[in-house]
């Protein structure tokens, strides 16, 4: 039915085409509208599957980086708290050193003065213990993983199992401790008044067992009299008038926190490490509760110094005090080292924070490039589409209305 080089066009064809094109134009406008009002190029994965995949990936990365950033902040806060505590401790120790030096001057001092100095050192010791028991955010700083337990406990009594010594079974020798191969006998008996009570198997030797005792500060021996003899493995408790041991109740493990994938940083501090460990701890080694008379090393040294000052009049020597001062210097050095280690850690955290922030900015930028729409481009496309739509409506309206009928008489 087609003749010549033209094709037959019917009215239905024209209206169909018109309608189809209107729909196409409108759907373009709809899509652009959507993009502009949400600001995102990719509404559905099908808009840009590869882009959607990348966008998801970047978004997950950004989320992760935010979390790491938070972790770094928390670690940082903890570190600066610890640093403050160290600062206080350094001040305390300096004061102790000064006192000790004064006490070591033979000539101008007498024993009464020394006793006063030693008393002050005793209270500084208590202050040090309470510094070490500091909390941050409800958790103890130096108790390792047992963040709910008070790490350091200053005791005023010693309990141990009796073993018959050279003097027989009516003599109690002060126990000794071995730290780093050096065995020292405790000097807790500084004068005859320092022992407040002696208990054997839970019973007071004087009041319950009807005996009495005498103390010899020079030899650190307590001699019993009048009561039952002691047997091996009897449990003896001596009570003093000052702090004689500082126990550590925390544990020696540390907790780590992630600051980037696979990288962790220490977030808890062990107050003391075990005797055979080869890691350092601020307060030194500790051989454990209940073993003779063991204290945490740093405090042990402080107590030793104090006791040496007390005992100067009872056969102690200047050398003992000087050695004590050296020990205190050691403790100070340990703390200073710990502080610098902390400083290093803080540096590392800050660098990590910077890195994380940079990564964050970078990734957010890429994410935005992928995902976000370029407003200027989208709006100008929208205007173009609208123009096309209007033009098609106008021209279509004119054409589909005209037929031959308009012109026949």
């Amino acid at each position, binding site marked *: 039915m087609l003749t010549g080089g033209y094709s037959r066009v*019917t*009215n239905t064809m024209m209206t169909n085409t018109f309608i189809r094109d209107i729909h196409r134009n409108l759907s373009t406008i709809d899509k652009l509208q959507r993009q502009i009002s949400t600001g995102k190029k990719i509404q559905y994965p099908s808009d840009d599957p590869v882009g959607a995949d990348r966008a998801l990936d970047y*978004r997950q990365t950004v989320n992760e980086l935010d979390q790491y950033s938070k972790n770094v902040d928390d670690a940082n806060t903890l570190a600066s708290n610890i640093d403050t505590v160290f600062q206080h401790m350094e001040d305390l120790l300096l004061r102790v050193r000064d006192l000790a030096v004064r006490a070591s001057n033979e000539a101008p001092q007498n024993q009464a003065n020394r006793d006063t100095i030693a008393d002050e050192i005793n209270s500084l010791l208590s202050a040090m213990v309470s510094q070490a028991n500091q909390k941050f955010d409800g958790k103890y700083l130096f108790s390792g993983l047992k963040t709910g337990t008070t790490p350091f406990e200053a005791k005023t009594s010693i309990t141990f199992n009796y073993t018959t010594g050279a003097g027989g079974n009516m003599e109690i020798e002060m126990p000794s401790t071995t730290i780093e191969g050096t065995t020292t006998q405790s000097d807790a008996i500084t004068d005859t008044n320092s022992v407040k009570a002696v208990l054997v198997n839970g019973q007071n030797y004087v009041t319950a067992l009807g005996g009495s005792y005498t103390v010899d500060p020079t030899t650190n021996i307590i001699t019993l009299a009048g009561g039952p003899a002691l047997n091996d493995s009897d*449990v003896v408790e001596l009570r003093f008038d000052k702090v004689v041991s500082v126990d550590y109740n925390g544990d020696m493990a540390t907790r780590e926190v992630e600051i980037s994938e696979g990288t962790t940083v220490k977030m808890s501090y062990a107050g003391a490490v075990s005797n055979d460990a080869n890691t350092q701890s601020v307060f030194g080694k500790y051989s454990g509760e209940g073993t003779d008379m063991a204290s945490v090393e740093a405090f042990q040294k402080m107590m030793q110094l104090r006791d040496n000052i007390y005992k100067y009049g009872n056969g102690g020597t200047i050398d003992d005090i000087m050695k004590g001062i050296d020990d205190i210097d050691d403790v100070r050095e340990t703390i200073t080292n710990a502080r610098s280690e902390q400083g290093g850690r803080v540096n590392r955290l800050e660098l990590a924070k910077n890195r994380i922030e940079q990564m964050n900015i970078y990734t957010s930028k890429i994410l935005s490039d992928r995902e976000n729409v370029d407003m200027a481009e989208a709006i100008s496309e929208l205007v173009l589409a609208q123009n096309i739509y209007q033009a098609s409506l106008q021209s279509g309206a004119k054409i589909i209305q005209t037929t031959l009928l308009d012109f026949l008489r």
Partner: protein
Amino acid sequence: MRSTFFGIETMRRALLSQRTVMDTVGHNIANASTKGYSRQRVSLTPTGAFPYPGTNRVYGAGQIGTGVIVESISRVRDQFVDGQVRVGLTSTAQLNVEKSTLSQIENVFMEPATTQGFSGAMGDFFDAWQEISKYPDNTAARNQVIAMGQNMTDVIRNIDQTLRDIRVDLNGQIQKDVAIVNGILKDIASLTPEIAKVFTHGMSPNDLLDKRDLLIDELSQYVNVDVQDSEYLGGLAISIGGRELMRNDTVYDLTLEPNWDHPSQNTKTPYMNDVSQSDFYMLSQFSAGELKGAINSRDVILPEVQSKFEEVVSTFVNSVNNVHSQGLGISVEDYSTFGAGTTAKISNNANYAQIAATDTQYFSVGEQIQIVDPTDDSKTITVTITDIQTDGTGNGRLYFDNIGSLVKTEEQAAGVYTDVTFDIDAGAEIRKLVVDKYNFFETNELLSRNLVGDTSPDYYNQMTSTIKFPPGVSLDTTIGELENILGVQIAPSNATNAPRLRLDNNALTDTIDDNMTLEEVFRRIQKVHPLTNDGNAFGIKFDEVNHNVVLTGVTYNALAELGGENGSECNLFRILGFEGQNLSSYALQEGTQLNTTLGDLGISNGWIQIDNTLIQIDNSVTLQAGINDINAALNNTVEAKSYNTQIFFDEGTRRLRIVSDHAFSADTPDPSIFPATPPNAASNFLTVTGLQQQDSAPTYSKKQSLISTTTSDIGARLSVNSALIEDVNRIASASSYAGIPGDNSIALEIASLKNAMLMGDSSTGRLGSPTLTIDDSYNDIIADVGVKSATTQNSADAADKFLEYYQNRQQEVSGVSLDEEMTILIEAQHSFQAASRMINVVDEMLSTVINNMGLAGR
């Protein structure tokens, strides 16, 4: 000599013809915008000239035309264009359905536009674990973990539910579409006799043909039909892929049947009747159309997404649970007090706690116990058990490290001390410190849900079955040898139809051939990773000593769906009783076919008894009928013991095979009950050689699956462990009791799962280890859906353009152009007027002759 009225007659014909033309134009104009209407044209032809050559003809100068007549009124239609339009309709419809499904799936996940989809929720979840790792004993952090865990399960449930709803929707669409197709076929069929009648009378039923073409166009949207003229005039044969839907006025409806490899209730697929055998359904060969699109969406596109999502979710849940269940929470709880008679005797020399000997079973070395003063709860000591013994007097002793004196000194004020003693000897309490380990996520039994169209979830059969090898068969027997022994075809000789082993939904890419040994076949089956519950692998254990095969597994339908391509059975496993079913096979005599009568087979009239069912045998019926009768009788009621027993005849090998769900026995009929003489054993239908009994009846237990083939129920059942919600301190953060509460190693490990390579097993390559994180795998799903969706959208656009082009061509050929019609109308009108004028002229001439001649001289 021509007749007087010759001229008028010619003009009369002209008038009538032009009137017809005008009427036809009017019809065209009236139907200008009717859908499916093709314009009609009158075909005019001159009537026979006068005179016709013959001996008695009138002599004259030549022949004179005698006018015009309407030869035919025909519609203008191009068959080729019609065909192309139908092709276009079919593919557009299919692509539109698929496009819409993919778009819905995209909407379900809502990535990347949303920050609260699965990806965002997972990020938040692991962030919460990071917070716990910093502060393991912080209640706020723990609550956050619970909240984020619940958020995850909400998101997962939502996605899962919506995907299932899409499936329900598609199911409904398929049902509706099949009904529509059947309706259209019926309409077409009812038109055909009408059309045929008109054709028989020599006319062209244009409008009816238009109507029928329109119906066929509509039909093409749903299915890809081939339309051809049939042997009858005006009749059509409509077929799909060579199978007929309709011929003349006979319709072969589409039916919906459960698909053989989708045992779940509501997966129904359209089947077509095979004309040659009634009631034999064959899978229809849809290659395009809306039905194909819906089936494709429901059975291919959607399950792929569902199963990948399943994998991601189960890896996530299992990984978290695995780590979490090894960790400890921070609350030491569940103090179990042991009964009266428990005392702790602690003396200075012996450190032990004394308990009743029967209670020692509750303790083990290395555990920690707490010894409590019976009068004051706050006086407790915690010790670790180093040894457990019983003494001669029936007491048990728990030894622990010497802790020295149990006297504690407490400083009340400076210099003031009080003793706190334990009066242990008077009977302390011993408490066991129990720190429970929990899973983080738990999966519950399905709560009852009312889902329209998709009722109960799929149940698995957990099956253990022991099957005896047929005698003479061992693991080294090849398939070929087995075929000879049993007389059945397992691996057909035709290589192109070689059956694949198909276990439940997973097809191995292996084929069985005659040279494979049984052992090899079993190994291949074991490699299959069926969708299992509780991680129970499917197991085949061979026992050559006892000549047994033991199968354990969780399957969809008792491993019954083992088969080859296109639903053909894999005889191997039917024979070995793989379904845990009894079976047997009997050889029948040479030349036996389905239409051989039972009498010819040597069976006499009488009865047989199978379990409780008595079946009367009439030996004049054919084998086919006999089998049908027996099957009907055996499957009469569910309560009958022989229910689900099927007997069928394998023509290729002349073997009668019997398959049953259970161990049954066929007894020789009790002669006192049966009227006829019991047939002798040799000719008794079923008791020829007795039935091979199972060694042990298969045990079935129905377990509900965590996932199912067709619907994924995992979302509905996933939740955060309620024990953890009860007490958030139970959330595991520490890895050992000693580390409580500061140890965060478990929390760190869970947090690091986010970046752990857990998925994407590339065991087929050189690397045998996972290469993707959970996030990566999930992103892959999204990208995959995105690519598919984008591709389908593009294809749909292209198909639409194709359709548009041919619809325009159709309009070009068959459409009504008002301008054209008006012009033709004017033409006809002028002709009509001219013819009327001619009649006037002739009329005047005749008037002159009649009225004015022969009046000379008046």
